[in-house]
């Protein structure tokens, strides 16, 4: 890249485009700084990925009201009212003193062309700045916002875990879950076997990540709720300041053997369906226990299914061992909660490869 190309690329970066759109007015930089910091704060109460309407944060360079003050609501001290907003269009104006006013049900054309005003817009998982009528796309993630990426980050981490630790059983803790060296059967027959190895493996992976700021623990429903829950959810991740929690339930598919080599359990696709229902129950309990938290639920399905195996199987062909590698889970229509609830993620299937015979 020659120097001109380099400089052109630098100028394409959105803060510089915004500044230029306002003729290098220093107030535009201040407006950008204030909106950026305020978005981080607002997203402690509001998860953009769960939101189906349009969300605007605006800053007038001269600090004047852009919409009628009498129709707005001062929310500086009660931003938590954003917690239950899911559909309606929301407009928030931020001021130099960091006061915030909220308007709802306003025609957006009333302010989109306002003079000397910087506007942040979030819609359909895309985000923009509108600077002096110029729309600048700043979308960085496939969902949610670049100013609040806890759930997106956790999703990426689970994918990384799938590929780097599970696919080839590279995690030594997870590897203990296997009954045999060819990874055809899981261990079974003891309390928490093989589940404990899987839970511990994922917990350790999250714990060891230097960048991950979530806190790992276990969901302990309030006393009255534990009566309704058959067991606690496997992992809970909490982010103190950003007001978010993630519930992670782990299920495994495949066959397990007890110490004497007898088949102990066979978990098929229906186990994933059970996991979906169970996680939905946890979600309902968590909503009651944590009414002011933004909740996301993840079902991790460790897929160790092998084709045509029985108690005497000791080796497996490539064809039988990898039979399920690309077979997605079949979730019943009434269990596809992620289609209705933005708080429920689609299950993450993690196929574990066996060691196959040479063909």
């Amino acid at each position, binding site marked *: 890249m020659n120097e001109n190309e380099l400089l052109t690329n630098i100028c394409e970066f959105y803060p510089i485009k915004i500044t230029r759109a306002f003729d290098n007015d*220093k107030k535009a930089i201040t407006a950008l700084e204030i909106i*950026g910091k305020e978005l981080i704060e607002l997203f402690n109460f509001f998860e953009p990925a769960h939101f189906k309407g349009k969300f605007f944060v605006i800053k007038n360079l001269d600090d004047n009201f852009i919409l009628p003050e009498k129709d707005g609501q001062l929310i500086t001290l009660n931003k938590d009212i954003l917690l239950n907003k899911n559909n309606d269009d929301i407009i928030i104006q931020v001021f130099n003193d960091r006061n915030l006013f909220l308007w709802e049900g306003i025609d957006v054309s009333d302010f989109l062309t306002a003079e000397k005003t910087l506007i942040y817009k979030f819609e359909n998982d895309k985000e923009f700045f509108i600077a002096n009528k110029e729309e600048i796309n700043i979308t960085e993630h496939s969902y949610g916002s670049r100013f609040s990426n806890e759930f997106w980050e956790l999703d990426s981490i689970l994918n990384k875990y799938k590929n780097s630790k599970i696919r080839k059983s590279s995690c030594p803790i997870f590897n203990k879950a296997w009954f045999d060296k060819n990874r055809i059967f899981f261990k079974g027959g003891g309390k928490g076997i093989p589940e404990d190895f899987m839970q511990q493996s994922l917990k350790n992976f999250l714990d060891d990540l230097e960048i991950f700021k979530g806190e790992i623990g276990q969901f302990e429903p309030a006393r009255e709720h534990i009566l309704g829950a058959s067991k606690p959810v496997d992992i809970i991740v909490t982010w103190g300041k950003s007001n978010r929690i993630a519930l992670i339930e782990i299920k495994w598919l495949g066959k397990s053997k007890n110490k004497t080599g007898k088949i102990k359990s066979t978990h098929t696709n229906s186990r994933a369906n059970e996991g979906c229902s169970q996680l939905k129950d946890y979600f309902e309990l968590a909503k009651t226990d944590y009414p002011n938290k933004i909740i996301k639920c993840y079902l991790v399905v460790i897929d160790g299914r092998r084709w045509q195996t029985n108690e005497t199987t000791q080796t497996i062909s490539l064809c039988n061992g990898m039979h399920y590698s690309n077979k997605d889970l079949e979730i019943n229509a009434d269990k596809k909660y992620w289609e209705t609830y933005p708080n429920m993620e689609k299950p993450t299937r993690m196929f574990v490869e066996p060691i196959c015979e040479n063909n």
Partner: protein
Amino acid sequence: MNKQLEPEVQFDCISIGIKLYDYFDGFKREEIQLFSYFSSILFFYTRNPINDGDWKYKFIIDDKGFPFSQELNLAIDQHLVNGHFEEKGHFFTVTARGMKVFNDIKDFNYFSNREKAINAACTTSILVSYEKTERALLNDKEIKRKVKIEKNPLIEQEFIYQKVLEISKKIGAPLDDLIIPAVSWINYLLLTEAENENE
């Protein structure tokens, strides 16, 4: 621990700590070091050489490739001992007492230029993203070059500042502002990162 620390280093430490805690829910020792280092470069923009002098402390590159200042490290320890910071798992957070101390001193004129530089450095981590800001600063070609020649080399902040200034001037950034030079510099480092790797 018995060494008398300059007020500047204590101020930098708590100011950066509060911002990183506010934006990212917690921080590590090396993050305080990294953002103090970035602030020290931006500080040249604001300083009045007669009144402000220099940044007061220098950085070397530690074995993990992070900028490191022993004074700043001691200041972190002191804030922990005084209950301004507390450890929470792998990270530090700022306590209510720490917030109060910072609120009491943040508007002192004496620190105002340092605060401008710190604010610009930390705001960059919001506008660009923390991960990219860290990656860019740690992969700076000049720093990598020095590490190859020498163990734990001293960073020449003014030399890097001259390069930041050059980029800012070439893109026509306003000279009385720190945020645009800061984000432009990070963007420059990110854009040249791939080329550096191929060298």
